[in-house]
Structures are given as C-alpha cells and as structure tokens.
C-alpha cells in the first residue's frame, strides 16, 4: 500500500500484519452485560485494532482476530470484571515482522 496521504481505515492497517488466529479459542471475552460501562464503551474507540464494536442492542462485542495484544482493554476493563483477558496460546496471535 502506498501512502498517498489519504485517510486509511484501521482494517487496511491490520491487513498489513501477520496473524495466526487460534480459531474457536478467542483470548479475550466480553462478559454478557445489559449496558456497557464508560470504559467498556470507550474500547469501541480506543482499541487500536478496533476489535470492540457496539451491536444494535447497545452492547459491546469483541472480535479478537486483529488484536495486537497491547493490553489496553485489560487495563481499562479487567478489574471491573467486564472482560476476561489472556494471552493467546503460545505461537498464536499477532506476529510482528518489524515490531
């Protein structure tokens, strides 16, 4: 992709990265909730891989395939119990070529 100065979508950014997805074993889960807390809601904006999205019921859902394992969501939402966070199994997840 050539940087032409146009605005890129985060999906296009993640497309550059290499991942080995542990299919069927997501390493992060969002606990069922009726309404997200401010921090959980913030993840829909703050997650650098845009893994968190709001569904049409106003709940936050996660698709962790593009996760870069930074841990931001854990810092914001693990203590409150809203998310369950682990590293992927050894060898799985993001594989930085440059880092």
């Amino acid at each position, binding site marked *: 992709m050539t940087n032409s100065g146009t605005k890129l979508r985060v999906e296009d950014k993640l497309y550059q990265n290499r991942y080995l997805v542990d299919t069927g074993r997501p390493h992060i889960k969002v606990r069922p909730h009726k309404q997200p807390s*401010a921090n959980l809601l*913030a993840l829909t904006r*703050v997650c650098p891989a845009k893994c968190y999205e709001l569904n049409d019921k106003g709940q936050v859902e996660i698709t962790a395939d593009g996760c870069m*394992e*930074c841990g931001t969501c854990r810092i914001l939402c693990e203590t409150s119990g809203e998310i369950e966070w682990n*590293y992927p199994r050894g060898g799985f997840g993001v594989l930085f070529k440059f*880092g």
Partner: protein
Amino acid sequence: MQMIKEEFDAIVIGAGMSGNAAAYTMASDGLKVLQLERGEYPGSKNVQGAIMYANMLEKIVPDFRDDAPLERHLVEQRLWVMDETSHTGIHYRSDDFNEVKPNRYTIIRAQFDKWFSRRVRGAGATVLCETTVTELVRDAKGKVIGVRTDRAGGAIYADVVVLAEGVCGLLGTRGGLRKMLKPEAVALAVKEMHFLPEEVIEQRFGVKGSEGCVIEAIGTISHGMAGLGFLYTNKESISLGIGCLVSDFAAKMESPYALLDALKNHPSIRPLIAGSEVKEYAAHLIPEGGYKAIPQLFGDGWVVVGDAAQLNNAVHREGSNLAMTSGRIAAEAIIQVKRRNDPMTKRNLALYKTMLDKSFVVKDLRKYKDMPALLHTNARNFFTTYPLLMSQAAQNFMRVDGTPKIEKEKATTAAFIKARSRLGLVSDAIRLALAWR
C-alpha cells in the same frame, strides 16, 4: 517433554530486552537457564520505536557491533512542538556523533531481538518459543519454585524465576506480586513502518551512510492528551507513531489510529513520508508511572525486570536501556547469591534492588519522580496550550507585516497571560522546575 524432568538454575519469562539481557548474563556465567517466549520467535510480540542505547548493551554484549542488526546511528535529534499547521523546536546535530563506537542507534525490534536471542542461545541458555507461561508454581510457603506453561507436561522447576514478561505483566499481577497497572500510569502507542528507498531517506533528512535522524514531538497532535509523536529513521524505513496515556484515550474516547493518520497528514510530517509503503501497524503499552510506580522488585524465588517492573524514563523516552540494565543487574545479583551457595530467598534477592538503586536506572527515575503527576494532570496546558502559544509567538516573530515590533512583543506576552494568567505561568514554571530538578 523431556526437559520438564530437568531443573534449572533460572527460568526467564520473556525474550524482550530485559529477558534477553538476564538470560545472556546468567548463561554466560555458566548457569543453567531456560527462557520461555510466547511468540513464534523472539521479537514477534515486541514493539518499540526504536532507539537502542549502545553503552548499556555494550555492558552486556561488548562485541554487539560485529553482528547486531543496527539500522542507523543517530547524529541528529529534533524536538518539536507542533500545532495544526506548524512545528517549532530544537534541532541538535553534531558530527561528534559520527564516532567509532556510536552512542545511539535505531533498530527494528523483531530483527534485533532475534539476534539477541541467537547470542543467548550461543551463551548456552535453552530458549523455548511458542510457549505461554500460564502460572507461577509455589511451594507450601509461597516461594516461587517454577512455572506452568500451555504446553503439555506439567510444571518446570528452577531455583529462581526472572519475570521479564513485559508491560502487561500478567503473571505478576495475577500472582499477587504487584498491582494492576493504572490507566493513568501507562501510555498506548501506535506505530507504522513506512518503507522508502535508502537514498530518499538520506535526501529528506540530510544524512549519509548509516547516519540517522529522529524527531520527537508534542503539541496539538495529541488532541489535549498527555502524549508524544515520534519519527525514527531506519536504513530503508521510517518508524512513525504516537502514544498517549490510556486514561486520556478513555476519557476523551479518542481513536489512536485516527491520531496517527492525522500525524501522517500533518504538513510538517507528510512530505517526510510521501510515497512510502506501509508494511506494518503495531500497538503497544508503555509504562509511564515513573519512580512512584515501581513495584516490589523481588521476592522468594523471583525477581521482576524491564517494563514489567515499570522501569521506563518517560521524560527522556528511554525504556529499552533501563530494561536491559535491570535484566543484567538482576542476573548479576542471582549469580552472586548462587556463588555463595545461598538459597534464592526474598532476603538474598534483595541484593538485586540494592544494586539497581545504585545504577542510573533508579537514580534517573527518582530524579523525575514528580514529573508524571505534573504532566498527566496538566495535560491540556503542557500538550496544547503552551504548544499553541509557542507557535503563535514564533509566527509573530517571523512574519513581517508592518506591525511595529513592540506591538508584536506585547501581543505575544498578552497571549501567554490570557491563556494561563500571570500566576498560572509562574506556577507552571516553578512546578516544572521542581519536578525537573
């Protein structure tokens, strides 16, 4: 697995800067070391700007220049204060940095970590990748005696476990060794790798051969959050990124990738990366709590090093050198305890902290102990108001438009007073001076 039957002198968790330094130092001294890394290869989970400080690596691997993958040695540093359309700042460039043994290099972490790991293996350590440590194993008295991993085969035992697990510090926080990081004590940084031909980089930054240039910037680019933008020149690529406090990101509901895209489109940055090919997008946390956030560093059967121990100097943007130095010092403390045939108890491992306190690592962090609180609670003033005022002052000074100079100066002074009040200006200056001292 066969090795589970073995017992090691030390298990090192993680193959980043601190883990590699610790494993290398211990293995070089003849200790039986097992290093566990969850990535496919060492470096595959690691992210850094990255600037590597030669002096600290030289203390660990004196001949690193022979075969380490170094990108450019730095001859120029630009510190920028940016607003929407401009940058002002300080450039420091010196031919003195073109020395036989240069002081700072840009590196590409995944490649550098692979090299460091080869050296660790060469020193005699066993390095096992694709292995996530899931739990610390303790005896009845609570002493850490080994680890469990996600591989089949049960626990692996060692006299001491070196936690070099990185900023997230999952094992230490879950194991009750230290508290969870607070959102205001950690920054989230995102970064892209922009590839350009070597000669284009040389032309754009006025460097030749392996000379390099780095830019670090504050200002409106962080949208009022406590943050820093950076641009580092590698041989054939540019690392471009921006990081801000997690607490600020959450409070302002800002998207890090949007900040990064805005930085890329800034008129001062855009021409520097024009025509580049982006090959990777990465994100990582950076510990920002400073001296006051340093957790308990040792206990019965364990020590913690590097980012997991929050050893990062936010003011000087140094982290990897603190990481590798803490890894080396922890290893040296362990070697001393072992030589005396003493057990790896909390009391004996306190030597690590004693030695670390005497090093630049803790001395530097102590110097700036009040800086995080000052910058983090006054983010808007330091990261937006002052940058805007500086830019206006600079433009006022440069632009020739027939306004008498005395009026221009008055306007600049008035702008500062209007924005922060006389008392606010004095108070900010004093607080900054006190925190810096």
